[in-house]
């Protein structure tokens, strides 16, 4: 217990400290200033621009920025699709794995491009090394860069005065990938190998166990993919068991660093925001709101898991060990589970389907809120900004003044886009969950009876719409219906938020800055932080409470009454 609390506290302190320390470099990269890596990487960067015919200094308005982003992600989907459909013809396939069926390849393509990394397949028996490296890993990088690019574009929209431009998409993508993600991943991958994460191109190994049984041990270039999977809040595992697999996450230390790496860039981005706007208090107030929510979530999750399952008797030790690894135990699994759903990561180091009902609900709620409790790389920032705008708007209504944020008036146009960004994912979650319950083919995928069955479907659509990718994995998602329905939700949940946020950025960029007056709400105050947290909790509660009551809440009450299904 004491050790567990020590773990949580030292984790948060280390996380915020290192993220802050990194933000100086991060800011330089994002604004395109000279930094320590410039001497090494500038030639590479410039050759990229030359090869692709890009002028990184060309200013783009929000529509051009959005168009470039959509086209780039669009061709990304096509390339993933093509490779997955033809992997049997491509090299680096020592197990001779066949091509994927179209609907599964389509789902996977959308999944990896949208930073969701929902997986309706099991890596070790489906994906060739070529597919893992050349398309899945690559999209792990690019979808993360896309998220950060949108966040930075949004910051520019807030900061700039009477300007059309929100930056250059190509320049953002290249710089973020080359200076931030690639060097970090390289070092991180080597650390993972030191812990026991494998990295090779060998065919699978045949072993004969001490008892004479045969065991086939899968191999592959895991560490290089694992590093960006965590750093880019992607979460798609090399193996089916994801970060519970000993080859992906072999030690308590590797686990600690993995959780750290989920939240590192998103937190650092808040300090970047403070630096770019030259108002460090603005980044800090958002960070405080996020950390308050995170601590509440972690506390509830851990308590529920520690309390365990009263239906199991005659045992010593933790009663919630089903689906967990011994080396992680309750605390490290809780921490991972809360971090992965706080961000849009979705990697798991224990099976969420077997979590105690309230712990499962914490994971679910964080995804439903749009993963803004710290949030994914970039996505957490711009997702949170939607709630910030909503909060200042509500505050403005209360005192009858036009709301402002950072000196920019929030008007009808911004509010329209904000409401779209906040409501679209929620709409997808509830409509598709409801629809699925009416379709016999969809309900036959449910594996756990009773209220948990509803939670499984709800979780799937929350995960897809929130671009998370973790699952109540008992649900058989590899069906025609789920492959397409989930792909649709992933697409809408990603670009249905990005485009409105870019539109807001464009609109804010054009505005004049109004001076801070008597009636202006101070967005660095405790009052504002409280208002922001309340807005998030209330919006989430009003939208999702009925569905949560029918799923995890009822299941929890039944478990206490020792009812099973």
């Amino acid at each position, binding site marked *: 217990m004491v050790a567990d609390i020590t773990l949580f506290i030292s984790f948060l302190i280390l996380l915020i400290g290192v993220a802050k320390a990194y933000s100086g470099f991060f800011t330089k990269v994002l604004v395109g200033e000279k930094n320590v890596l410039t001497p090494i990487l500038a030639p590479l960067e410039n050759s990229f621009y030359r090869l692709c015919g890009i002028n990184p200094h060309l200013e783009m308005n929000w529509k051009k920025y959005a168009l*470039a982003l959509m086209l780039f992600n669009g061709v990304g989907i096509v390339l993933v699709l093509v490779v997955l459909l033809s992997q049997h013809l491509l090299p680096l396939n020592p197990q001779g794995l066949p091509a994927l069926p179209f609907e599964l390849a389509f789902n996977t393509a959308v999944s990896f491009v949208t930073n969701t990394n929902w997986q309706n397949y099991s890596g070790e028996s489906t994906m060739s090394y070529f597919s893992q490296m*050349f398309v899945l*890993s690559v999209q792990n990088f690019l979808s993360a860069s896309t998220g950060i690019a949108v966040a930075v574009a949004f910051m520019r929209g807030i900061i700039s005065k009477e300007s059309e431009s929100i930056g250059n998409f190509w320049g953002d993508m290249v710089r973020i990938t080359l200076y931030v993600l690639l060097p970090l991943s390289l070092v991180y991958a080597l650390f993972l190998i030191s812990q026991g994460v494998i990295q090779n191109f060998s065919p699978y190994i045949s072993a004969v166990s001490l008892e004479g049984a045969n065991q086939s041990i899968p191999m592959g270039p895991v560490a290089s993919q694992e590093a960006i999977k965590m750093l880019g809040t992607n979460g798609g595992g090399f193996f089916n068991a994801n970060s519970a697999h000993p080859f992906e996450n072999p030690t*308590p230390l590797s686990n600690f660093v993995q959780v750290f790496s989920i939240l590192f860039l998103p937190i650092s981005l808040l300090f970047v925001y403070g630096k770019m706007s030259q108002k460090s208090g603005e980044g800090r107030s958002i960070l405080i709101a996020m950390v308050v929510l995170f601590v509440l979530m972690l506390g509830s999750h851990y308590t529920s898991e520690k309390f365990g399952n009263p239906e199991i008797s005659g045992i010593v030790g933790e009663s919630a*060990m089903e689906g967990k690894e011994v080396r992680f135990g309750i605390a490290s699994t809780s921490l991972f589970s809360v971090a992965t759903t706080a961000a849009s990561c979705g990697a798991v180091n224990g099976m969420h389907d077997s979590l105690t009902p309230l712990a499962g609900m914490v994971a679910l709620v964080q995804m439903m809120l749009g993963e803004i409790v710290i949030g994914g790389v970039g996505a957490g920032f711009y997702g949170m900004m939607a709630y910030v705008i909503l909060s200042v708007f509500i505050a403005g209504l209360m005192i009858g003044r036009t709301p402002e944020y950072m000196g920019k008036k929030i008007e009808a146009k911004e509010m329209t886009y904000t409401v779209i960004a906040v409501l679209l994912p929620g709409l997808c979650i509830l409509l598709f969950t409801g629809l699925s319950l009416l379709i016999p083919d969809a309900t036959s995928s449910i594996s756990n009876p009773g209220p948990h069955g509803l939670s499984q479907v709800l979780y799937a659509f929350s995960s897809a719409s929130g671009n998370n990718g973790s699952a109540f994995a008992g649900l058989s998602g590899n069906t025609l219906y789920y492959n397409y329905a989930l792909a649709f939700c992933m697409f809408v949940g990603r670009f249905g938020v990005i485009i409105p946020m870019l539109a807001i950025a464009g609109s804010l960029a054009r505005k004049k800055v109004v001076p801070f007056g008597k009636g202006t709400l101070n967005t660095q105050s405790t009052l504002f932080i409280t208002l922001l947290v309340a807005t998030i909790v209330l919006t989430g509660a009003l939208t999702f409470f009925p569905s949560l009551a029918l799923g995890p809440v009822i299941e929890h009450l039944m478990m206490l009454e020792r009812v099973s299904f």
Partner: protein
Amino acid sequence: MKTLFQSIKLLLVMTFLLGGVYPLAVTNLGAWVFPTQSSGLLLKEHGTVIGSELIGQNFSKVGYFIARPSAAGEDGYDALSSSGSNLAPTNKLLLDRIEVRKEALHVRFGEGEIPSDLVMTSGSGLDPHISKLAALYQVKTIAKERHVDEVQMLELVNQHIEKKFLGFIGEERVNVLLLNRALDKHFGVLNPQHE
């Protein structure tokens, strides 16, 4: 149209760098600095691979410490289908399975409370560890089955306990394959006929 071509070109250049150069660089560096880790911490006896230190195995024979039950594949510990059971805490199937496992353990190890990890499957189905509690729980029985002194057995188990990192990260645990291999080394290989 120009934007489309830029997209395609940038995607291809990125794919070459991130999908080709980057994993190859990691592979070469890894093979150079950490050769055993990057190839899977394989354990060899007389030239044949007996498994990986990180991948759990089934132990059902008398005289070996048992591992956790596993949901990977039909018979458990199928490393080609890593998976948890994904059974919900209120699923009757889970509760029934736990009861069945408890009874089996009572038969071999005697009545009494059982360490929870020995009746519950792991997340990967390949968990190489059991808890410290679960290792100590088996000492008496395994010593008897091996006809060796319980104190000696306890000593060997104690040597195999892995501690929490820095005292607060992770849990105390014992690697079952490493422990059983050490049993064979110290007390002789089990005679398969001797059951």
